[in-house]
Each structure stands twice: as structure tokens, then as C-alpha cells.
């Protein structure tokens, strides 16, 4: 027994365990991708008129199918793609926040960053009558601005998770009152438009929404993936991170910029779909159980949450609800459970 152990090359014991974990991680990712594709196909097929998967595939491949080409190609496909992309953006952005600040509560939708985008959009609609691309730019910029403000206010010899969360929640509450004020003064038509920025919905997700969103993610997702190594060091605490050659404050700032951009771009496309950013990380963590990095699993879980939530909101609940209402109903109990369970401040990933 001992002899066989000695004959193994140095590192073999460690390598075996590491390979087993990375196999498990890959399995989780593959399963998530398969489920996501299945749900995607389902949302493309099923609706007021149901088309066969074959028809749907032909539309996706660019063939002309009478009836389906418009319903699937111009309505359902952009809607589903927006759902996937927004879910990826929220899932990644959320888990980056939660990991970097070592607290599940540090999700951008809890600490007021999504509220920053929403408030700016609502004010822009009701007061300045903006719409379209200008509106999206205003929303993204203000999400980033609010994140900067929260970061600056919580800076004291470096940024600490708990202080940033508390300041974020306070800023979020202030922004909510701005939203309420703007809504109460607005005309009924504007309120309708503004609602999308409050609950989050895919109702206006047509091709002009998909293209800029896809373009932004094409830049942000690789950046997040490259930076995610730094998350692994930051998780160990600021001192350990610096000792490993990953300077804590500088790395956190870079991660924060990318994560805020992800969340703001998602919010600009579909509004602050409640709790997707908050839920994706913890669910991914349950699935992965320490077998590897959470960034990609959380992105896939985020996409699934949005797609399933939107499908349920449209077809399963009798009335039509925007996706944000469905995810809100899912997320709120989890937040309560998290707060009730934890004796500290929420727990980390």
C-alpha cells in the first residue's frame, strides 16, 4: 500500500482530487447549458400559437416560415435572447459583487445600484420625456454614478463589505422615494412606460434592444472572466489577497466597474428584474458546492431565472405578469430566510 503511494509522481494525490472537482464543475455547467437551451426552445415554441420545434429552428436559421417568421423571429426570439443576455449580465454582476464583498446581501439589486438606474430612467421619462437610446444611456450612466457614490461614501482606509451594504441600502431607499415622487407627478401614459423600469419586464424586448445589449456583453463578459481570478484571491480577505500579489483595493475597483457595467446594461435593456442578481450566485453555489468558480454557473442560473420567470409570467399564471414580478415573488422569501437565518450579516459565498 505504502509502496504504491510512493511510486506515484509528486502531486498525483492532489491532482486526482482537483480533477474530480473540475469534472463536477463541468458537469454542472453542461447541465445548466442543456436546460437553458431546452427552456429557450420551449419559450420559442409555446405561446398563443404553438409552433413545432422544427418550424422554430427553421426560423432561427433564417428560413421563411409563414406565420412563424414574424411571431417567432420578430417577437419571441428577441424576447428570449434579451432574457438570456440580461440574465447573464445580472447573474455575473451579482455574483461578482457578492464574492468581492464577501456577503450575499451585497447584491446590486439590494444595495441600490439597480435603483440608481431605475430612478434616473423614471425621472428622465416623466420629467424630461426621454426615450429610446438616450434613456438607456442615462440609466447606465446613473447606475455607474450611484455605484461610484456608494463606493466613495463607504471608503475609509479601504472599502469594507458591511459598511458598503448599509450605505447602499440607505441610498437605495432615497432613490425609491425619488421614484415614488416622480411617479406621483407623472401623467398616466408616462407611468406605463416608467413601470418597466420599476419591475423589470421583457415586453419591449425587440431586436433594437438585443443588438446593443449583445455588443456590450461581448466586451464585458470576457473582461469579467479575466478578472474573476482576482475574485479568488479577494475571497480570502484583503491581506491574504495582497500577499498573493492581488492588491485588494485596486482589484476590487476594477471588478466593481465591470460588475456595475454588467448590471446597468442589463437594467437598461429590461429594467431591474427583481432579485435575479441576488439569487443567481447562491443558487449556483448550491449547485457547484465548492467545485470551482461561480462566475459562469451564476451567469447561466441568471439566464434561466429570467427565461423561466418570463415564461411563467406570460403563460402559467392566468394573468400576464412582467418577469420582475415573478422573480420578486421568488426572491423576497429567500431574502427573508437569509436575514432570519443568519446571526451575522448575511453570510458569504
Amino acid at each position: 500500500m505504502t509502496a504504491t503511494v510512493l511510486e506515484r509522481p509528486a502531486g498525483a494525490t492532489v491532482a486526482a482530487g482537483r480533477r474530480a472537482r473540475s469534472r463536477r464543475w463541468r458537469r454542472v455547467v453542461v447541465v445548466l447549458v442543456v436546460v437553458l437551451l431546452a427552456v429557450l426552445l420551449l419559450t420559442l415554441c409555446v405561446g398563443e400559437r404553438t409552433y413545432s420545434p422544427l418550424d422554430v429552428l427553421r426560423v432561427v436559421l433564417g428560413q421563411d416560415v409563414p406565420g412563424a417568421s414574424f411571431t417567432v423571429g420578430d417577437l419571441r426570439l428577441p424576447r428570449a435572447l434579451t432574457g438570456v443576455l440580461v440574465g447573464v449580465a445580472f447573474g455575473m454582476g451579482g455574483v461578482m459583487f457578492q464574492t468581492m464583498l464577501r456577503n450575499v446581501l451585497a447584491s446590486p439589486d439590494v444595495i441600490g445600484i439597480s435603483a440608481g438606474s431605475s430612478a434616473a430612467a423614471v425621472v428622465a421619462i416623466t420629467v424630461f420625456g426621454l426615450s429610446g437610446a438616450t434613456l438607456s444611456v442615462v440609466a447606465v450612466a446613473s447606475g455607474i454614478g450611484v455605484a461610484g457614490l456608494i463606493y466613495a461614501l463607504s471608503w475609509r482606509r479601504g472599502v469594507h463589505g458591511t459598511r458598503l451594504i448599509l450605505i447602499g441600502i440607505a441610498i437605495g431607499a432615497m432613490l425609491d422615494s425619488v421614484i415614488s415622487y416622480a411617479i406621483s407627478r407623472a401623467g398616466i401614459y408616462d407611468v406605463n412606460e416608467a413601470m418597466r423600469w420599476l419591475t423589470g419586464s421583457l415586453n419591449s424586448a425587440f431586436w433594437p434592444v438585443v443588438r446593443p445589449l449583445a455588443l456590450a456583453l461581448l466586451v464585458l463578459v470576457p473582461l469579467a472572466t479575466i478578472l474573476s481570478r482576482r475574485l479568488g484571491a479577494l475571497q480570502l480577505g484583503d491581506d491574504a489577497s495582497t500577499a498573493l500579489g492581488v492588491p485588494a483595493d485596486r482589484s476590487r475597483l476594477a471588478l466593481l466597474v465591470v460588475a456595475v457595467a454588467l448590471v446597468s446594461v442589463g437594467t437598461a435593456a429590461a429594467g431591474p428584474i427583481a432579485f435575479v442578481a441576488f439569487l443567481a450566485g447562491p443558487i449556483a453555489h448550491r449547485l457547484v458546492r465548492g467545485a470551482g468558480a461561480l462566475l459562469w454557473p451564476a451567469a447561466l442560473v441568471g439566464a434561466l431565472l429570467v427565461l423561466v420567470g418570463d415564461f411563467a409570467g406570460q403563460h402559467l399564471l392566468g394573468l400576464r405578469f412582467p418577469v420582475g414580478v415573478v422573480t420578486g415573488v421568488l426572491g423576497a422569501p429567500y431574502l427573508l430566510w437569509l436575514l432570519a437565518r443568519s446571526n451575522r450579516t448575511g453570510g458569504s459565498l
Partner: protein
Amino acid sequence: MKHTLAVEAATLGYDDRVVVQDMTLEIPQGRITTIVGANACGKSTLLRAMARLLRPSAGRVLLDGTPIDDLPSREVATILGLLPQTPISPEGIAVADLVGRGRYPHQGWFRRWTAEDDAAVEEALRTTDTLDLADRPVDELSGGQRQRVWIAMALAQQTDVLLLDEPTTFLDVAHQVEVLDLLTDLNRRRGTTVVMVLHDLNLAARYADHLVAIRAGHLYAQGTPAEVVTELMVEDVFGMTSRVITDPVSSTPLVLPVGRHHSGTATTGRAADDERAAPEAPLPADALR
């Protein structure tokens, strides 16, 4: 290649509060240096500055003669390792994966995990006697095991200099000795320069080649434990009356505190014998809660 670490006329502090003033210190290469001092004397602050966790407001920290802040952080991390006082283990992470994070500085932005990394992790686990825990989640370990795993992470970094901020806190006396023995092995076998802050003066005196005593942010004395640990030093640095005798086990200085109680005449060894002969009735465990 041997690396040098020195502090040159450094003033250290937080915001406006100066904790360490005008400190100059050279860490002996390939030796075990221990920093001792009373609470809040600046010993941890000094270690933090040497680990580039704190930038001096005046003066500098030199690694191989170059100011440490001028060197790329990742390059420094291949020379200088640190065991921080309160590291955080991510929920559910396996021991081997945590130790593997010590390989970060050896990997570039795109370099993948290699067999060399596996070998380094395995050696670190073997050295700290934690190889059989490799696939266990860190959360499930006892305090002593966990501390050894963190040390393993610092070892996997394979640095020539290792800084440790109170590596024995939260450990019972057996595990304290175990950790210090482990660091001594490392120093003897590989010539690793070890610098640590220790609370326990007697263990510091036993395990140090070079002892640095800090009082109120100033260097009070440095040298071999036999030179530094005296009744006068204990009085000046810790504000405590004591007797210093020779440790019958290690022949290093052994400090016996003289408090207001149980000290008898405190002039001969007899007082201590009397105490041992007539111990106080032990308290029931409940009384301590």
C-alpha cells in the same frame, strides 16, 4: 538566491495616528526572527508594513534593496509570503483548492494550472501534515487543522521569506508548539527566512534566532533571545515584574511573571515548589462560564 528584507527609518500609522516611529530594522537572512512587545506597541503594524499591506508615511521598506512599493505586487508575492492574522476561507472550498490559491503569483493572466502547481500544493500539504485532508471542505476542520492549512497555502507560494502575524493564536499549547516546530523545520531544511509576531514571550524566546522587542512604536532591543530577554527588558517593554531563568528544556530564557498573587517571596525556586505542592482546588468547569 537569498533575499533581503529591511526597514529603513519608517514611520507607520493609520490616518493621523502614528504607531511606529522612525523604525530601522534589518531582518537576518535565513533565520527565524520573532517580534515581541505589549499590546498595541506596533509589532503587527511593523509586520504589515514589511508585507506591503501598509505604506510607510515616511521612510521605506526595502526588499533586495529596492523599495517594496516600487516592485510589481505579483513579483513580490513570489519572494515574500504572508500568513495574515484573520484570513477568510470561502464557504465549501476544499483544502487542496485553498492551498492552491498560494500558486496565484506563479501563474500569469493566462497560464493554466500545471503539474508543477500540483506538486507544490502536495508538498505544502505533506509538510504541514494535512495531505489526508486535501479533499475535505475547510469549513469542517478544527482550528488547529485550519491554521496548518493556511500555513500550507503560504508554503505553496514557495517564497524565500515568510511573514506570520501571530500564527499561534486560537491554538492550544500543543498545536502552538507543533506550528512553531513546523516553521523551524522549514527554516532549517530550506533556509526560509521566517519573521513572526508572537504573543507568547517564552515560545518566542525558545524558537527565535533573532528577537526584536518593540516598545511604544520604537525598537527597544534586538539580538539573540539570551541577549534580549532580561528582567529589565520585561519590565520596560511589558511593564511587568518578572524573574528570568534558564528554560530547563531548551536552555533559552524563560520568563516567570511576578503578579500580585501567588508570588510568595519570589526570590527562590522554593515558592514555585510550594505552589505545586498545595494547589488551589480547581474550579468546576461551570464556574468559568
